[in-house]
């Protein structure tokens, strides 16, 4: 992709989505000039019916910078992956989330299996549904300036291991907005942002997925005003090993409703989310600098919130330079209720033998990287700070002792976790209010 086209591309994408214009300042002004210098962007309109897939694919192959491809109301029967490579600033726009349906039910195998595969900058997808793809519904790789607005990824059969992995799936992208979207039935994660930077996920819904919303190995993400319910796990902030982007940090999770995530795990054997216990609300794993606040977290039957390091998964770590610890965590001002009343899962069963049959709202494995201690104490930037969460209860289940083959000394004491805690800065994406 040509970075030289980037500014124009992103500006064009923003304008064509009808978003509010960029806030004042020199840089947005520059982008406006470069857009007005271009000829009017091309618009291609395609109706459902015979040959629609070919028409859409040809439009994508022939797309010009800044082009809008309008998909009319109706159901498009699509039997192969639609793909856009390289052309910057393309928008695909439907007539409404439930009005324009790209139906991949008749998809043939051997063609990759994604619904939409995009490797381009400044891409916008809005106002349509992508349903029943063999693998990921919408995969966007390596793009700068990506927006999904009013988009639904759906598997109509409900939870099934045969469903595709990810619903909305930007990976290795920069400046990503997911707004007013919905994901239902993904056998991995419904809304999944991987290895990306500068991300906003808001006003969206995820239900009946294994993981509702997952932010993985991503830096600077704001996740707010979403509802995640009826999944196996509601909202995950993970960092996993062996990926090109090794770390994840600066994630804010706030004003979300994360409740009733009690669906039996239907993830495929071998996938990391297949190990997520049913009944998990929020799971923070191995991620750094995460602030979780002002959320309503309720009725997740294993635990409303789990905070763990990667070692607690029992999985091997191949890369000695990779950091498996969750550090710099700030959990405050959330409203917890219900949940913890029916914990399930293999590791959870072992844990239940230690702490009993009803789990507290907040489960913490207590793992700390001793190498980071200074004079015996962990510097504040690595601390886990938990405060002002109403009457939420807490346990540190001392995974370190378990891993060492000893007897864990559990603690219900939040006193070691008092403190100021860091307030993370808001994510700013140029042109997004």
């Amino acid at each position, binding site marked *: 992709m040509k970075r030289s086209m980037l500014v124009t591309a992103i500006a064009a994408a923003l304008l064509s989505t009808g978003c509010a214009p960029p806030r004042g300042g020199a840089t947005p002004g520059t982008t406006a000039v470069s857009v007005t210098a271009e000829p009017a962007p091309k618009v291609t309109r395609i109706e459902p019916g015979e040959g629609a897939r070919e028409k859409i694919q040809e439009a994508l192959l022939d797309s010009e910078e800044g082009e809008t491809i309008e998909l009319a109301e109706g159901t498009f029967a699509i039997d192969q992956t639609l793909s856009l490579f390289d052309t910057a600033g393309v928008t695909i726009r439907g007539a409404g989330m439930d009005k324009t349906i790209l139906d991949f039910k008749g998809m043939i195998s051997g063609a*990759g299996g994604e619904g939409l595969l995009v490797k381009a900058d400044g891409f916008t997808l809005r106002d349509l549904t992508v349903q029943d793809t063999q693998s990921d519904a919408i995969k966007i790789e390596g793009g700068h300036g990506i927006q999904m607005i009013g988009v639904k990824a759906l598997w109509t059969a409900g939870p099934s291991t045969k469903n595709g992995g990810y619903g909305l799936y930007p990976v290795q992208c920069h400046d990503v907005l997911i707004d007013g979207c919905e994901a239902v039935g993904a056998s991995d994660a419904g809304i999944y942002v991987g290895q990306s930077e500068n991300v906003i996920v808001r006003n969206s819904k995820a239900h009946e997925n294994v993981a509702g919303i997952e932010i993985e190995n991503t830096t600077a993400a704001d996740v707010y005003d979403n509802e995640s319910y009826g999944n196996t796990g509601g909202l995950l902030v993970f960092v996993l090993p062996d990926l090109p982007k090794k770390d994840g940090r600066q994630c804010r999770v706030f004003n979300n409703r994360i409740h009733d995530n009690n669906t039996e795990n239907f993830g*495929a054997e071998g996938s990391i989310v297949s190990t997520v216990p049913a009944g998990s609300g929020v799971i923070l794993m191995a991620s750094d600098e995460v602030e979780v606040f002002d959320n309503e977290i309720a009725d997740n039957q294993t635990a409303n919130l789990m905070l763990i390091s990667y070692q607690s998964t029992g999985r091997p770590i191949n*890369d000695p330079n990779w950091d498996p610890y969750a550090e710099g965590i700030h959990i405050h001002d959330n409203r917890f209720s219900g949940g913890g009343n029916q914990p399930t899962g293999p590791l959870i069963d072992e844990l239940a033998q230690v702490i009993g049959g009803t789990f507290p709202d907040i489960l913490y494995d207590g793992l700390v990287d001793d190498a980071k201690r200074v004079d015996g104490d962990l510097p504040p930037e690595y601390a886990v700070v938990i405060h002002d969460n109403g009457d939420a209860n807490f346990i540190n289940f001392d995974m370190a002792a378990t891993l060492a083959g000893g007897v864990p000394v559990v603690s219900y004491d939040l006193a070691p976790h008092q403190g100021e805690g860091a307030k993370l800065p808001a994510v700013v994406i140029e042109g997004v209010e």
Partner: protein
Amino acid sequence: MHRVMPLPATTVPAQAVPAQKVLAPLTDQSQYRQGGRHRRGNAVSWRRCWHVLVMAAVCCAGCGRPQAPQPEGAATQAPAKKFTWPARLSEFDLFESVLPTSPAGSQGSGPFVLAKGVTPYGLNTPLFSDYSWKYRHVRLPDGAQATYHGDAAFDFPDGTVLAKTFAYPDDMRRDDSTVRLIETRVLVKHDGEWQATAYLWNGQQTDAELARAGHVSQVSWIHDDGSPRELDYLVPNVNQCKGCHQTAEHDIMPLGPKGRNLNGDFSYAAGTANQLAHWQATGILAGLDEPIDAAPRAAVWDDTATGDLAARARAYLDVNCAHCHNPAGAARTTGLDLSLTQSEPARIGVWKTPVAAGRGAGGLLFNVVPGKPDESIVLLRIYSLEPQVMMPELGRRMIHDEGVELIRQWIASLDPGAGVPDTPGGVQPNVDSQPVDAG
């Protein structure tokens, strides 16, 4: 917007495919070959000029005319990234006519009378393509030469056309069976970069139409074992071409014509000859300075006379997997390198744990467990038709029973005691900047 001609849902009966001249009506595009229409000046749009330039490069290269001059105006504009293709395959002038049968069955140059300057070729071990019969042809510009590489694709000059035609016979047991042409995939080298597309053969089998967006064709045939087979055959779209042909440096690179895979006999019309020797003799290959007997030579995967079990299995894995699974390929982050030249057992999967295979691992722990094919992820994946599990991801819709059996035998033959790791996960992944699915 071109039309994609739908194909009938059944195989074409033999009598419906008379030997006939492939003679598409002259189109605007074919006229470009005849002269300097692009010199008319102002009336011709820049876009058309560009088209003329492209056509001139493609066609003049083939018929020996000098390359067209740069049209006025084009110099000040960046060349369009997208290459403009002729609407019909016939405009490449590769084939004078199409025959109803292929004289040498699945081998040889196929059911074609070749135009002058077109060289048919074959590969020692080809990619498995759902049992289709494949015919490969190359045409270099007059007097031009490809530069030899033993373990990489040759360097071809601008104007080179590589064409691969996919076909199904009515009956695979008979070399004289009627052959139905499905598609011809064309690579053209233009301005230093390769371009790729597919052309879809019409029901009359007289010509093939440009099909950049891909297509599904219903095919059926009697298989080698006498059983009837059916398949929704997939013609790839242009982006899918890149799925296999893309490298770190180029959108598209040829995969087949490597020295080691061309170093074998081919049945030419004039008789059987070693392909490298033939290319040298006809003047289209330079740079092969060693005796052909000493040049790298890939085994023929199903011919025990050409190599032992390991050599044939590795040749098969190389051609079917290593376009992604190589140290610079799309699957490099997996750390699995199935290139023929890789000699480190762990890198070809022996006792190697998957990096981010997810469901693709099917709960198995290692890519290759010596002596235990059924515990090896490599076998699981080539035996699968399930999306997100099956390998390769593109271009295969059937299980290649014979290929799977070859790999099964190879894994079974490996010494179970060799290189057993002390603990799982002892092999370091090769991780860099490519995206992979993870969680």
